[in-house]
């Protein structure tokens, strides 16, 4: 039984969610092959060989894989399915974009966003924005699965000694082309894998005010998040959104500042280990899920909290 994991990377480094996906793969019981497909991504393949739990790294390098277009990667994945029982990818925009396409061409179902492996064919996945959990069983010859990164621990990036095999590139398809991207540049930890996340909501009132969170985030080594209301109001870019339609996070500490706690936001953060809510409205629904609630004006809270963190 071979479990094929599709690595998410940017041709320079592997994305953290891949490590959580490998953990899920190792729970299936089989040999894990990790596909690194990109352009000039030899360094990624080399470092991936040290990831614990990976038996083989499959390295495919070609121009058409540079931007990880689903149209180009699908035939490549299809060419690697001999003896493969499961194909996994992170349930990120990358994995969600690619794997259903592969599943359709293999004529099998896809299972999205699993949070638990019950056995090699049975999985738990949230539905209705996490308001229900479904246990599903697949009888397909190949199980195609995207994995919710926050539900599995990351595997170690060292200790492994996988072989690296070059894989023959498939013919370019050419029906779609990459034009450009605007990626948020930040020195802070990735939102979905950060140990601490501090998020702001509509209460901030403006993009300018949202910047007040930055020094606080730096002090805590935290990632910054935002509610949908804050994103829709243009305070923060879309990729900061935590919630059902944004990113799902489950850090050790989640601090919600000026967020009321709409169901759609709670779906994205309620698996966090410790939740702190700060809101001036004592009746805000966010307090129903918070371990520690503080009724306060966020503009008073931020400097006070920041000062308190300085006192050891």
């Amino acid at each position, binding site marked *: 039984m071979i479990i094929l994991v599709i690595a998410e990377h940017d041709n320079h480094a592997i994305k953290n969610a891949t490590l959580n996906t490998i953990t899920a793969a190792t729970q299936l019981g089989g040999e894990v092959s990790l596909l690194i497909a990109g352009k000039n991504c030899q360094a990624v393949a080399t470092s991936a060989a040290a990831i614990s739990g990976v038996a083989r790294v499959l390295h495919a390098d070609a121009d058409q894989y540079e931007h990880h277009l*689903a*149209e180009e990667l*699908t035939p490549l994945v299809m060419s690697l399915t001999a003896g493969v029982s499961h194909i996994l990818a992170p349930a*990120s*925009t990358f994995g*969600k*974009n*690619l794997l*259903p*396409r*592969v*599943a*359709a*061409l293999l*004529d*099998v*179902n896809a299972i*999205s966003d699993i949070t638990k492996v019950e056995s090699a064919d049975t999985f738990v996945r*949230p*539905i*209705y*924005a996490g*308001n*229900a*959990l*479904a*246990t599903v*069983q*697949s009888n397909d010859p190949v199980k195609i699965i995207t994995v919710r990164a926050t539900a599995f621990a990351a595997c170690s990036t060292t200790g492994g000694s996988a072989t690296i095999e070059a894989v023959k590139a498939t013919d370019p398809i050419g*029906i*779609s082309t*990459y*034009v*450009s*991207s*605007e*990626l*948020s540049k930040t020195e802070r930890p990735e939102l*979905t894998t950060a140990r*601490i996340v501090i998020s702001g909501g509509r209460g901030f009132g403006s993009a300018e005010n949202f910047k007040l969170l930055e020094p606080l985030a730096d002090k805590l080594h935290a990632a910054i998040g935002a509610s949908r209301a804050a994103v*829709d109001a243009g305070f923060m870019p*879309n*990729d900061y959104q935590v919630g059902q339609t944004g*990113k799902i996070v489950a850090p*050790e*500490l989640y601090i919600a500042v000026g967020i009321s706690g709409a169901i759609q936001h709670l779906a994205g953060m*309620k698996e966090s280990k*410790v939740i*702190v809510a700060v809101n001036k409205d*004592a009746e805000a629904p966010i*307090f129903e*899920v*918070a*371990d*520690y*609630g*503080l009724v*306060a004006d966020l503009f008073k*809270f931020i400097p006070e909290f920041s000062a*308190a963190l300085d006192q050891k």
Partner: protein
Amino acid sequence: MKIIVPVKRVIDANVRVRVKSDQTGVETANVKMAINPFCEIAVEQAVRCKEAGQAKEIVVVTVGPSLCQDILRTALAMGADRAILIETEPALQPLAIAKLLKALAEKEAPQMIIMGKQAIDDDNNQTGQMLSALLGWPQATFASRMELGADRVTVTREIDGGLETLSLQLPAVITVDLRLNEPRYVKLPNIMQAKKKPLAIMKPVDLGVTLPAGVKVLKVVEPPKRSAGVKVADVAELVQKLKHEAKVI
């Protein structure tokens, strides 16, 4: 240009879903249903293409029981020209739906299929990608901006790290995200007019499609409840708790 917009009927986004006590699913009896919010954005986008003179005809389609005609009427009231119900028993999964839509697309020959990125019931986020694969067309998922040219469409996608722009050859499948547009409010005269627009009903057999088996749902349960914690009086108490009780900072 003809645009097909597949839509889904789901529990209204504002309803708090309840898991059935026999663990077979969630309660849908006597629950308010609505067009899936992402599908509504897809319909709006297609209608805007038509209003801009870029599209001639918009066909909305749904797969499900007879009851689903209500959301087709909603889409017609928003500005779609005609509707198709592919009548099936409830609860088909994405692969089966993609196969039906593929057969329909081959019959209707649209230049574009615009649909929601996911339905808010099963949260699969699969059907558009599967459909695009089966047709051999390009795809742009998570669309937040769309510019239609003569034989290509340029789409900006909301991806995890920010935004990405792709150019797709037509015909193509586009799945839409929240920020693509704000769907219009449907007015009463439009609802009345929509009643007169054509709505065809067909069966999977009419499209020559054999439905594949889906994954088996063994049980559906409520997630573990998170109980409310304590209110702290001030920042000092909060920091003290985080340091010494929760030990997270």
